[in-house]
């Protein structure tokens, strides 16, 4: 019997092999990101302010039982009927019975992820009631017997020709592969269904407890028809959509629209408080609100997953997720796709359906783009932990989770270890025995450690401040020269620098689902750092992932004052020295050139600074810098790209390919990137030399 993991691997292999399909998905996601970016700029929306405002509205309040009850009471007061559905089956049963009582044979629906979650159409069809989706994307996937591939763009994976073929089949006539021609057929196909349906089912984007009001946002206007033409209007909504008052509605309308599609508001925002009469008649017109729990109360009570309830369903996390962009939501999803789909699926549909969690490569971009700043990376790590506890850890993941010890051993035995990892026979053995892909160039190790290099080095005056330098594995075992250069520059700028005995950052524990060990490492490092921070030290790291762990992950792994204090004074290297560059006399180009340097922004640096300070550093040294980017990850994601096969190197290179093409088009010959692993990926994919920006200036 094929296991869920084997199926996932097979599905990923097929997705990678189908380049036209993944190009379509990748292109759609890139356009969605660029629409969002343009919208934010056009409407003058500051992302961090929006995140803070959205969290004020949602966090800590979602699914509060008293709030849900207040909403239900307001709906009842307005004459609506409320049904609290504990499970999806309960919700389906209620609507099926209602359909029977009201003589309903046809239901028209507007888009609702909640009804997808409970497989509403399927169950109602079993009960002999026809359900027709009226959102064009949902209709397309319904006619094609598929699930939506994306929360906002359900048919993003299909071409115009595919869609023309689907409608040709349904309407039994040849429809040309032209969007306008397709649209011409859709309107007359759906109109009679709207006019004859006895029941209309909508979801809800917002429920306002204060007045018992439902708000539905669409661009097509189908919800207006679904909620007015049929005599019976049923709203099926997740209880997480309820907010307290009208004071917060404007904020959510803006956040939904700009995050999903880059609009300031959707074309139609429909606001229902009752099912009003039609042409003066209220005969047979009923209004029902089904409030679905289906695991949400459990999530609400679980501190590990309750943040997922704050999701606005904008789909932005899908738009930026690099592996989702290649494989799409049919592979990277169950009924809820994408990064946020992982904790939702695990909580609502069970762990066995959430194996796609292993497609997350921990780039952290989902959290960065999320309008509610939901900590998806940590929740996903927890789902992985549960899945690993149930099904066991992959050998290769276990190997990379010992990277610190392995790096120590390789450093101690260098140059022998370096000779070994360059030998094709040893790489073959490493691939077969452990699962490290032999096509990946591995970094070499230095016998000399960073500490060895620092003994006897000149101390800084400390006039600018005191810093702890956090080398992580790379600047300690692989490239201590990098750490040395960083410290020398800091000291020359007037900082005194200490390098205490810290462990590595522990990111692979997050990537491969060992949250307990990640917490252990974080606790150790925080314990070491606390006295320094208390006595006025800042913390700085040349590796973006190390800085990201200190500022973004440790506070959630080890909640409390210490982690907050450390996060507050931690930064990536160039962010720390950005203010010192103007007066610095000793930053000069190591090899002056008129040709622009290609610059790659690592994902974890994107979340922290967007690469801006490193670019400023290179420009201060006299270089012209050209940012080359797809807007998402390079695909390497730490050690993920070193793993053998579809769930490693192949997927990593499929993501990387899009970036490699841009580097080729850019005609740049040298690449700067702050991340050691991103540099490896770019060099492997393009043949270009990629280095840390500190190697672009003369050593001090």
């Amino acid at each position, binding site marked *: 019997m094929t296991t869920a993991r084997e199926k996932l691997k097979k599905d990923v292999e097929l997705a990678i092999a189908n380049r036209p399909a993944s190009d*379509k998905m990748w292109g*759609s996601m890139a356009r*969605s990101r660029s629409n969002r970016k343009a919208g934010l700029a056009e409407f003058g929306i500051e992302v961090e302010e929006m995140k803070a405002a959205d969290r004020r509205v949602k966090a800590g309040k979602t699914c509060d039982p008293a709030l849900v009850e207040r909403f239900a009471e307001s709906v009842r007061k*307005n004459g609506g009927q409320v049904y609290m559905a504990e499970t999806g089956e309960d919700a389906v049963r209620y609507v099926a019975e209602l359909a029977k009582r009201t003589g309903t044979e046809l239901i028209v629906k507007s888009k609702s992820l909640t009804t997808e979650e409970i497989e509403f159409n399927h169950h109602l069809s079993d009960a002999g009631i026809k359900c027709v989706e*009226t959102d*064009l*994307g949902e209709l*397309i996937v319904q006619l094609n017997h598929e699930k939506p591939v994306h929360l906002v*763009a*359900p*048919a*993003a994976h*299909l071409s*115009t020709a595919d*869609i023309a073929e689907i409608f040709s089949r349904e309407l039994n006539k040849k429809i040309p592969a032209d*969007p*306008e021609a*397709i*649209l011409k057929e859709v*309107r007359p196909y*759906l*109109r009679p269904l*709207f*006019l004859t349906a006895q029941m209309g089912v909508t979801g809800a984007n917002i429920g306002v407890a204060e*007045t018992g*009001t439902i708000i539905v946002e669409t*661009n*097509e*206007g*189908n919800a*207006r*028809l679904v*909620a*007015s*033409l049929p005599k019976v209007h049923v709203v099926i909504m997740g209880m997480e959509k309820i907010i307290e008052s*009208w*004071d917060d*509605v*404007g904020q959510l*309308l*803006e956040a939904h629209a700009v995050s999903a*599609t880059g*609009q*300031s*508001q*959707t*074309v*139609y*925002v*429909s*606001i229902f*408080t*009752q099912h*009003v*009469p*039609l*042409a*003066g*008649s209220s*005969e047979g017109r009923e209004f029902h609100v089904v409030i679905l729990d289906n695991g949400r109360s459990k999530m609400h009570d679980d501190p590990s997953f309750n943040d997922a309830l704050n999701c606005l369903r904008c789909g932005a996390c899908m738009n930026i997720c690099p592996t989702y962009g290649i494989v799409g939501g049919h592979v990277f999803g169950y009924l809820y796709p994408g990064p946020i789909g992982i904790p939702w699926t695990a909580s609502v549909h069970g762990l066995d359906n959430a194996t796609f969690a292993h497609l997350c490569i921990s780039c952290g971009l989902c959290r960065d783009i999320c309008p509610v700043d939901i900590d998806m990376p940590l929740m996903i790590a927890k789902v992985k932990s549960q899945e690993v506890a149930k099904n066991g850890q992959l050998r290769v993941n276990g190997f990379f989770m010992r990277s610190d010890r392995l790096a120590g051993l390789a450093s101690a035995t260098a140059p022998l270890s370096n000779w070994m990892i360059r030998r094709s026979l040893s790489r073959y053995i490493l691939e077969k025995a452990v699962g490290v892909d032999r096509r990946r160039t591995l970094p070499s190790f230095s016998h000399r450690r960073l500490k060895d290099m620092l003994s006897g080095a000149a101390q800084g005056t400390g006039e600018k401040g005191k810093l702890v330098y956090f080398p992580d594995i790379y600047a300690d075992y692989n490239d201590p020269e990098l750490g040395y250069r960083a410290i020398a520059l800091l000291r020359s700028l007037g900082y005194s620098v200490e390098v205490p005995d810290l462990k590595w950052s522990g990111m692979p524990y997050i990537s491969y689902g060992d949250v307990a060990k990640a917490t252990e490492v974080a606790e150790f490092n925080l314990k070491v750092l606390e006295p320094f921070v208390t006595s006025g030290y800042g913390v700085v790291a040349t590796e973006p992932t190390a800085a990201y762990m200190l500022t973004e992950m440790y506070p959630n792994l080890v909640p409390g004052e210490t982690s907050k204090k450390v996060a507050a004074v931690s930064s990536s290297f160039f962010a720390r020295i950005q203010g010192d560059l103007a007066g610095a006399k000793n930053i000069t180009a190591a090899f002056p050139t008129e040709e622009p340097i290609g610059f790659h922004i690592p994902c974890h640096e994107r979340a922290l600074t967007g690469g801006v300070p490193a670019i400023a550093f290179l420009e201060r040294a006299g270089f012209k810098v050209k940012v080359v980017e797809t807007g998402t990850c390079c695909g390497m994601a730490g050690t993920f790209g070193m793993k053998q096969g579809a769930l490693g190197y192949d997927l990593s290179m499929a993501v990387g390919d899009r970036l490699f093409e841009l580097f080729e088009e850019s005609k740049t010959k040298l690449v700067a990137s702050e991340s050691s692993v991103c540099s490896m990926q770019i060099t492997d994919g393009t043949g270009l030399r990629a280095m840390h920006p500190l190697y672009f200036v003369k050593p001090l």
Partner: protein
Amino acid sequence: MQEFTDQIPVLGSPDAFFAALRNLHTTPHSVGDAKTTVDIIKSILTEADAKSVVAGGLPTPAKMLVEAALKGTKHAFAEDLKPSEAAGVISKADVGISWARYGAARQGALLEVAYDDAVKLVSSLPRVSVFLLSSRNLCPDMSAAVKLTAGIIRSAADVKPVISFISGPSKTADIELRLLYGVHGPHELHVLLLDWI
């Protein structure tokens, strides 16, 4: 029946409103007097080759003008339709003429308040939708319009109206993210900003 003008503390800029409407694939018309209102409606009907028109939710002065503009064209008012025929008649109309209670200048949004779904269908079913809006009801932005919406719902007595923000014609991007108009509702939207009412 709703009031047709309100005391809005700060009015929105008509220029900003028109710019936003154009961005939203909507045709704005600035209207200084009653006669021009009739002329513009007539020209929209001619351009749309309208054989049948519906209107609904209009305050009395606007309704009288619309009636004048519709002389000689098959038309109906939503308020006069029987329950059994309303949806069919509105669905067959080529043009729907509606009243926007408010506008949000910065975002180009219209706020429609319907105490009867037939009124809502007038702006939902025909291929061309025309909204009349008093310039005295133009709010600066959505935030102000949402506050007014909350006020309407909070203070509504027995019938709580259905309220819609409308920002352009019906559109979809579900076919390869290409923007297409008129999938279900109007594919063309006109806004007449009335200075005289």
